């Protein structure tokens, strides 16, 4: 009964979330975190006892931990008692037409080339019946169900597929892994769950962008993605459109499990609100992302990070199985007062494991951009191979670019190569472009896109097109 009702709510709320308020529950917990809050969230989601215990264990462990201060970012101390840990989806004021939307936002949409209907949806304008997401969703899910692929919200998965969730949740990022992972484990509100059965090649790019019921999953999102033996899945997260959110702290956890011969491609475009030019406001994006590869499996992370006041994340791969492959492609752009400390960890455990890291950092304005990465080759990882390339581009003389690669090699057959460069856009290249009639701003966009090409070409096509425009927009006003 209840599940049906919730599933229906999901659909209804998701679709017309910004348009109708009647179906939205108005439960809001007071600020603060305690065991009662954890119990409340768990009860609200009608979770089984083991899930509650799991959350409580994480919470108790979190209490014993200290907030990490080692990243190369600065921000005022977070008051964890000043956060609302459970709130029903927030409603935005209903607007009648796009004319009422902030023109600056509309201009951004136009540059990104976002279709008009989607613009309306994103800004909370009542959406036409033509743009029928319900039908999109239905055909979408039918195609997936046909292949036996489970793709639903985390809450739903806990209810409908407890055996899978119980088996895999916390298996890659244990609740006591780090401070924010522990916090997330205790209070995660929702997220996505995906299971691809043996030998199945997922017929479409799974995307949170199109998956209606996962919108506004809150600040503590949890994603669990399992690719069973020999399967393939490509997953897109995020959205190129600027996302504004009331929540300042976002502490998500993403776990990927690639079984034998499976392949997971995980792409992220992150464009949370970065704060204004003076660094006021903006999202703290503190994320733990990690995947584990069995024999001959492959996990590939691609990320384009342009938003957030502070980005702090290291999508990692544990290459447990022999012959497994890990990849990390990243573009991180910081402008104005943004700070980013991002990179990856490649842990080579199995023989003949391979990893490739391509990181492109771009700093402009007064921003600070750090690459921090670890390549660890364990003693047994014979013939492990790693190639890392970390380039930084500086635009303006008040920004910083930093590289902190860690190489820990305990096997003589391993080949590990790391190279990093830091430079600015060459004056002669700029001059050449300008002399050909390309404005300074367009020239920067052109050069930056070329510079990021290795990463952008890893993105699914439609994402790549938007990401290119997004890079240009993020760097607007940084030259001249």
């Amino acid at each position, binding site marked *: 009964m209840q599940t049906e009702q919730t599933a229906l709510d999901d659909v209804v709320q998701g679709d017309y979330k910004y348009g109708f308020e009647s179906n939205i529950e108005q439960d809001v917990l007071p600020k603060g975190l305690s065991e009662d809050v954890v119990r409340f969230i768990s009860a609200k989601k009608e979770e089984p006892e083991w899930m509650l215990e799991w959350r409580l264990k994480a919470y108790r462990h979190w209490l014993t931990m200290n907030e990490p201060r*080692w990243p190369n970012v600065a921000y005022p101390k977070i008051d964890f008692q000043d956060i609302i840990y459970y709130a029903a989806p927030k409603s935005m004021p209903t607007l009648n037409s796009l004319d009422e939307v902030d023109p600056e936002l509309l201009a951004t949409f136009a540059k990104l080339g976002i279709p008009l209907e989607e613009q309306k949806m994103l800004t909370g304008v009542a959406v036409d019946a033509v743009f029928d997401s319900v039908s999109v969703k239905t055909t979408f899910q039918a195609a997936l169900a046909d292949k036996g692929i489970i793709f639903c919200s985390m809450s739903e998965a806990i209810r409908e597929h407890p055996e899978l969730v119980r088996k895999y949740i916390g298996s890659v990022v244990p609740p006591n892994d780090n401070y924010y992972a522990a916090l997330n484990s205790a209070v995660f509100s929702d997220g996505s769950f995906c299971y691809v059965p043996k030998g199945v090649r997922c017929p479409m790019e799974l995307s949170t962008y199109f998956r209606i019921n996962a919108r506004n999953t809150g600040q503590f999102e949890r994603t669990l993605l399992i690719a069973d033996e020999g399967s393939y899945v490509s997953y897109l997260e995020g959205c190129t459109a600027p996302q504004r959110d009331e929540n300042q702290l976002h502490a998500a956890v993403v776990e990927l499990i690639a079984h034998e011969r499976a392949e997971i491609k995980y792409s992220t475009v992150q464009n949370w609100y970065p704060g204004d030019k003076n660094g006021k406001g903006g999202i703290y994006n503190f994320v733990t992302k990690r995947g584990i590869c069995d024999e001959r499996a492959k996990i590939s992370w691609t990320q384009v990070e342009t938003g957030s006041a502070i980005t702090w994340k290291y999508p990692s791969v544990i290459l447990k199985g022999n012959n497994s492959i890990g990849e990390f492609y990243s573009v991180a752009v910081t402008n104005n007062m943004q700070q980013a400390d991002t990179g990856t960890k490649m842990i080579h455990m199995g023989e003949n494991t391979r990893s490739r890291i391509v990181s492109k950092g771009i700093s402009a304005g007064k921003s600070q951009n750090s690459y921090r990465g670890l390549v660890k*080759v364990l*003693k047994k990882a014979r013939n492990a191979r790693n190639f890392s390339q970390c380039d*930084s581009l*500086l*635009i*303006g*003389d*008040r*920004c*910083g*670019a*930093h*590289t*902190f*690669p*860690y*190489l*820990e*090699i*305990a*096997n*003589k*057959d*391993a*080949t*590990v*190569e*790391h*190279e*990093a*460069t*830091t*430079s*600015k856009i060459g004056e002669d290249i700029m001059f050449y472009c300008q002399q050909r009639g390309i404005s300074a701003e367009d020239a920067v966009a052109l050069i930056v896109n070329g510079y990021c090409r290795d990463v952008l070409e890893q993105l699914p096509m439609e994402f790549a097109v938007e990401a290119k425009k997004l890079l240009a927009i993020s760097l607007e006003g940084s030259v001249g």
Partner: protein
Amino acid sequence: MAMEHFTTAVEGAFTILSEHVNGASSGALHTSRKQALDVLREVGVPTTRHEEWKYTNLAPILANDFLPAIGPTVPVTRTILDGLALSDLDAWHIVLVNGVMQPSLSNLPDADPDIQIEELSDETSAGTIAAATTNPFVAVNATLMSGGVSIRIRANAVVDRPIHVRSIVQTDVGATLCTPRIVMQVGAHASCTLVETHHTVGRSKGLTAGVTEIDCAEGSSVAYTKILDDGENGHHIGTTAVNIARAAKATATTACLDGTFVRNDLVMRLNEPTAEAYLYGVSVLNGSQLADNHTVVDHRVPHCHSEELYKGLYDGRSVGVFNGKIFVREDAQKTTAYQSNHSLLLSDNAVVNAKPQLEIWADDVKCSHGATSGQLDPEAIFYLQSRGIGKDEARGLLTYAFAAEVAEHVAHDEVREHLERRIAEKLGARRFDH
């Protein structure tokens, strides 16, 4: 436990020093020692939780309960001196025993206007280049240093003969800590060569917490070579700090060839435009030796240049650590800074941990670093084989060439040849092992 014991031993020695005439508790020296001790007390002996000591665990080293010694405990004979490395080098040899300069054992220039070598009589003048706050072991040195060596090179002087400082720690009475200090001031447009070696003499283990400060005035040129080629009892934790002025050039070569434990902190500060810094390092280790090289190249002003090359060959169960920081401060435009670090692991049990690190706050710069760990190129081996050279010999040649590339940068012929010979010996010894 070992850590606290170490601090207590340093405190004990400090108390004894303050009862001496010179260190009297009212004097300036006492104050500066006390300040250094306070630094040590505050930061403590670092553990592996400390980022700068992440890969190097001091606990087993300090478990040896080293007791500080100042000055010779037994007389040093000529025979001992002659047995030490580079004793036949045509150089000004300066001998420090347990941190105190021994003019009678040294070979000093006699009334040469260009070069002035004397006992560091006013220890309070030290510490301007390597402050006690640099790291806990500089603090240890600053707390206990007494009678190191002061070297002054007159402006415009060209000193061809190298200056060789050999620091000896005597360990006949038990595990001993010594704290040598070398302060060198090179006048404007002068040039000189400084060689620093460390030796443990005695039955027990020795730990040297050494500090070397070099000031390169405008237009000067300094070649500095530090050789760690001690016996099994040798443990070394040393800091070298170099200030480089306008148009001056400093080259530092660090060779870790033998000794159980070595930690080097090398700091090169480019303080005025057009200063140049060159850093070279080579580690050839076997057994359970550990060599940890931390370098800092600090570009503080525009138009400076730095180059860095560190290489390591690790056999047995040895551990190599490299951390190279390049800082380019705000407004230090037109900086060029290059760094590379290459390692070869020769055994299944050897480990290398590398952390090249660029921190850049200026935009008009060209900076890069590269780090690799791998094996000899099979194609190069094949090429040599095709020329009639046996596989083992080919491997030997390539391995030697890998390490010797660093030695090539030592300008002084005799010193370079000595390094090359020692590298070959160490690698050769490995071949006979198998």
